[in-house]
């Protein structure tokens, strides 16, 4: 079979495959449309949309610039504090779990079981954890910190594992020849390889946690979410506007800085 025949043979098979996938997609799409019922659509929808837009465009400046504990600035700082502390605690908790699910560190069955555990930890929505931790600490930002810590573990551990499985172990050979002890090999052979990668992962997760922390207020776990929801439920759209503006600006700033730091960490 020469190359041309080979290509000819391959082409239609590939086409059929794409056709099949497309057909499945169309069916899935048609099926999913049935979930949407437009009967619920309220007549007032458009006018509400209008007032929301108006509120966001003309935000409540007093709230936006207030310095007290009710002001946007304070609430944002509280949200940052929840995300920051939660990220730190989560990153530390994730380290042992990551090593226990790295197949080049522990036996395969142990790694598998730890991975399964991580999948479960990851699936439970943040709000559920939030409500569970409120039982421990009572409502407030403390519950938020614990929630953020736990929901970060899954993803952090998963990303850590990739770095651990990529470890370059050839350095051990030369450290043995230098006369290093096991502790020295870990301190100067492993930690330098993992440190900047782990840090970069942590910063990435902090970025995400800030978004998560901003909705925890919904279940009473502190942060800017609660005042946002209250304002919405009371149709005070200009308050909603000022909170959203503060939130969006903060998240954008954090995202930009974190991207910069991470490129620096990776490129050195």
């Amino acid at each position, binding site marked *: 079979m020469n190359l041309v025949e080979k290509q000819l043979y391959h082409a239609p098979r590939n086409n059929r495959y794409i056709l099949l996938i497309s057909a499945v997609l169309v069916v899935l799409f048609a099926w999913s449309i049935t979930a949407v019922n437009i009967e619920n659509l309220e007549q007032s929808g458009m006018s509400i949309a209008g007032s929301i837009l108006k509120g966001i465009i003309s935000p409540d400046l007093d709230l936006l610039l207030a310095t007290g504990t009710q002001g946007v600035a304070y609430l944002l700082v509280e949200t940052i504090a929840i995300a920051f502390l939660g990220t730190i605690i989560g990153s530390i908790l994730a380290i042992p779990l990551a090593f226990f699910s790295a197949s080049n560190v522990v036996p395969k069955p142990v790694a598998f079981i730890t991975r399964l555990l991580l999948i479960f930890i990851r699936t439970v929505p943040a709000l559920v954890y939030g409500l569970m931790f409120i039982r421990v600490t009572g409502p407030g930002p403390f519950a938020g910190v614990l929630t953020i810590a736990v929901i970060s573990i899954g993803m952090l551990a998963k990303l850590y594992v990739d770095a651990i499985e990529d470890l*370059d172990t*050839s*350095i051990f*050979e*030369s*450290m*043995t*020849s*230098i*006369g*290093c*002890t096991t*502790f*020295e090999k870990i*301190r*100067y*052979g492993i930690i*330098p*390889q993992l*440190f*900047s*990668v782990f840090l970069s992962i942590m910063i990435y997760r902090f970025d995400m946690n800030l978004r998560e922390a901003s909705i925890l207020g919904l279940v009473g776990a502190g942060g800017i979410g609660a005042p946002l929801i209250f304002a919405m439920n009371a149709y005070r759209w200009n308050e909603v506007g000022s909170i959203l503006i503060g939130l969006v600006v903060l998240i954008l700033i954090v995202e930009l800085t974190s991207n910069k730091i991470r490129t620096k960490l990776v490129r*050195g």
Partner: protein
Amino acid sequence: MIEFKNVEKKYPNNVKALEDINIQIPKGEFVAVIGLSGAGKSTLIRCINRMHDITRGKLIVDGIDIGKLRGYEIRKFRQRIGMIFQSFNLVTRISVLKNVLVSLVPELSAWRKVTGIFSREHKIKALTALEQVGILDKAFVRVDQLSGGQQQRVALARTLAQNPEIILADEPIASLDPVTSKQVMNDFKRINEEMGITVIMNIHHVEIALEYAHRILGVRDGRIVYDGSAKDVTEEVLDHIYKGREDVMKEVEGEKVYV
């Protein structure tokens, strides 16, 4: 002075890697070990710093019977012997200087070991080693931004900072291009001549081995089949080292013809 006395090395699966090795390497010599892959070159070198344990015979380095060393003593002993590898074995995510400083780690005090804060004297030692291999200007660059030749020089500097009496090199130029190979070999030569450090090197580039080394050890099937000056190595000697078996076959055939 390194002395092999009837050294034999058997792997746990009973494969004999070294057999009947009897050699002496005086201080300051530049020795190249040549032979086919799997002949036992690497094992021979790694026995000297106890990366491999010998199964019979004696290996004496500067009057110390290294077979008798235990735990801490082995580590102490290894600090006197530098080792260079084919794959450089550096931590690529950190700076050149930090890589060189690794070789000084065993002599640090406990708190310095944990925090990784090195004293000025240690930094000067490491920087001096970098200057000796000519890459002082790269001291604060991350290793992953260096070329292969530069990385091997960092490894060489790391070894020099250890202030070794002997340097063992396991195929140090195998993953380098010809030009950088020459540069790295010149570094070895300078280190050998100017500092009087013994260099024992595994190498499969025969011409380079003959050009730089004083003495050639030819290894075939775990035995030393040639031991002599690099100047005396002829085509026949190389054939003897590399194609030993075929020679024997020919001889046998020859006998059949003439007998």
